């Protein structure tokens, strides 16, 4: 055992405090659900929120306040060549905050919600906590094995979350589709990883970058095939076209808090992985993989928005809309890829992705929170018609939904406009004006189906049902999301400063 130092290992472990907290708490939740189900059902949600808050605090504390606000950039768990497998840098911190935000909204929505408030409520929370735990390795991991384990942890918990309503056929269908396609995508991703390993001799992102640095031979042969396969595998998780077909069924079948989790946190997790891998390992070869990504982005935007036009089920509509948003976010990554050593463009690309994912999390979680509010004959509703006349039954929530939809469409004065401005600007800076134009046109198209919801809420008449009783956690979620959506739209500077930390990616 020469060369292994327990003291160094423990020191490295200290960098994983948020992850360890989440893992320990998830296990406790599982134990509690098996041994004291009644008690944990009462306090589980609030307890989980508290733990998520502590985890967010621990994550932010890793942004150590050195002089000038430096980041505690460090690598942990080095391999033989000295390349770390787990790093804590600005990028990791920002993305972990996004995950925790998405998870917090999910937990708020799941409290006092019919499907998730039953006997197995603690299991739902445990699954969310485990999924976030896995996601954190996607943000911090720099060894492909570490990243893969994080991806699988996140995905397996995700599959279970989608299939949580075991009695509901659509949930079973969505979960099976998600699981089978997810397993296939993982297999393709692994094959790509193995090809990249064969071509570069390293399984660590920094090792791959070092191996590719001196070599100008272009992405031919095994390396090119490996990169493409990895893109396919991750593209599935992100629900980019043409790997998006699982998303509508999985989003529709899952219970609404779980759908929100998939749409916000899980998507951000997959994007964290995409960014980390492609910027750190293949950053030099940006000109090689960017064209492929341009195709994915353009296709996602177009197909996602056009397919959403005809949906009557709001969750399916939001699923296709999230496919479109994935297309927008890919533009930021394309900007980084085509930046060709220009640090300003690279910074803008990374910043815009992180900023947009924050904004998108608020708006999407808010929209799903409103879907969670709908009731039809006492059952959770999810069709467009269930929104009819909502303004009379709950005016505040209706105004918030207006904000969320406008933000998703990118209307000025809401946060979505700021996010899109940064993203589209990043695309223009790398001379992809046509792509930005496609994005703008798609935003216009998306306004139509968001407007359908607005028309249903404000103009159509409902069934005349009485005022909805909204549980406190749900109204807190809607209120917080609405507030942030408005505030960021009007005064985005603090969030832009926060997103700027995402630029600090170690070693790249």
């Amino acid at each position, binding site marked *: 055992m020469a060369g292994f130092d327990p003291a160094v290992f423990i020191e490295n472990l200290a960098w994983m405090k948020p992850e360890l907290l989440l893992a320990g708490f998830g296990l406790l939740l599982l134990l509690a659900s*098996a041994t004291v189900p009644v008690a944990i059902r009462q306090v589980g949600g609030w307890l989980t929120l508290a733990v998520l808050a502590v985890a967010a605090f621990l994550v932010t504390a890793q942004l150590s306040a050195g002089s000038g606000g430096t980041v505690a950039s460090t690598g942990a768990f080095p391999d033989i060549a000295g390349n770390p497998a787990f790093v804590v840098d600005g990028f990791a911190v920002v993305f972990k905050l996004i995950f925790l935000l998405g998870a917090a909204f999910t937990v708020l929505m799941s409290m006092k919600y019919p499907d998730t408030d039953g006997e197995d409520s603690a299991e739902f929370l445990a699954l969310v906590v485990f999924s976030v735990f896995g996601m954190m390795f996607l943000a911090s991991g720099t060894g492909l094995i570490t990243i893969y384990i994080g991806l699988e942890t996140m995905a397996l918990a995700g599959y279970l979350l989608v299939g949580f309503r075991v009695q509901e056929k659509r949930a079973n269908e969505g979960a099976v589709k998600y699981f089978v396609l997810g397993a296939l995508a993982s297999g393709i991703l692994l094959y790509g990883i193995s090809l990249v390993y064969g071509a570069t001799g390293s399984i660590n992102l920094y090792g791959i970058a070092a191996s590719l640095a001196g070599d100008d031979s272009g992405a031919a042969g095994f390396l090119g095939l490996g990169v493409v396969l990895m893109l396919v595998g991750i593209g599935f998780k992100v629900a980019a076209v043409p790997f998006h077909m699982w998303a509508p069924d999985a989003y529709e079948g899952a219970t609404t808090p779980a759908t929100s989790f998939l749409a916000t946190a899980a998507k951000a997790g997959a994007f964290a992985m995409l960014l980390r891998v492609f910027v750190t390992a293949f950053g030099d070869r940006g000109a090689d993989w960017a064209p492929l990504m341009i195709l994915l982005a353009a296709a996602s935007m177009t197909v996602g928005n056009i397919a959403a036009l005809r949906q009557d089920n709001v969750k399916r509509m939001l699923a296709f809309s999230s496919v479109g948003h994935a297309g927008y976010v890919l533009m930021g990554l394309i900007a980084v890829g085509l930046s060709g050593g220009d640090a300003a463009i690279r910074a803008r690309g990374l910043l815009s992705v992180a900023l947009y994912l924050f904004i998108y999390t608020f708006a999407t979680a808010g929209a799903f929170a409103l879907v969670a509010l709908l009731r039809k004959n006492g059952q959770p509703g999810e069709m467009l018609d269930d929104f009819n006349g909502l303004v009379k039954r709950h005016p505040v929530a209706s105004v918030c939904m207006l904000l969320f939809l406008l933000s998703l469409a990118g209307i000025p004065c809401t946060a979505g406009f700021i996010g899109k401005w940064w993203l589209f600007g990043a695309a223009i800076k790398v001379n992809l004006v046509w792509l930005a134009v496609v994005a703008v046109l798609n935003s216009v198209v998306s306004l139509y189906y968001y407007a359908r919801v607005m028309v249903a809420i404000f103009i159509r008449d409902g069934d005349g049902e009485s005022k909805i009783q909204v549980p406190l956690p749900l109204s807190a979620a809607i209120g917080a999301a609405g507030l942030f959506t408005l505030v960021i739209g009007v005064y985005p500077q603090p969030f832009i400063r926060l997103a700027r930390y995402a630029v600090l990616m170690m070693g790249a």
Partner: protein
Amino acid sequence: MPIPAGSHEPDPDTGEHEMAAYFPVLLFLLVGLSFPIITLFIAWLVRPNRPNDVKSSVYECGIEPETPAWTRVSVRFYIIAVLFVIFDVETIFLFPWAVKYGVLGLFGFIEMSIFLLILVVGYIYAWRKGALQWA
């Protein structure tokens, strides 16, 4: 391309190829493929083929088939199988630790205990939720 530590550099004088170390694998693959194919083929050549109605019908302990051959298999078989796989993999991880216990010392013991503890939590969960009930 970097050569992994401890591997064998091919000797150009003897015309040795880099893939030479994998020759046994190729042999294994060919034998593994050909053995069943050859034996089944020879059996097919040698045996008589005289089907009739009674011989081709579904076997049900010698009586006339009463129930359909496709029955519903209970899901508890799957649950037991999955639990077996999980705890079997746990056992596999225990073996190297047991072999090198002396070298790994206290640090290894604590680390392994944490690993076992995590799986015990899962075990308690499965137990209390009735996954081990055969009734």
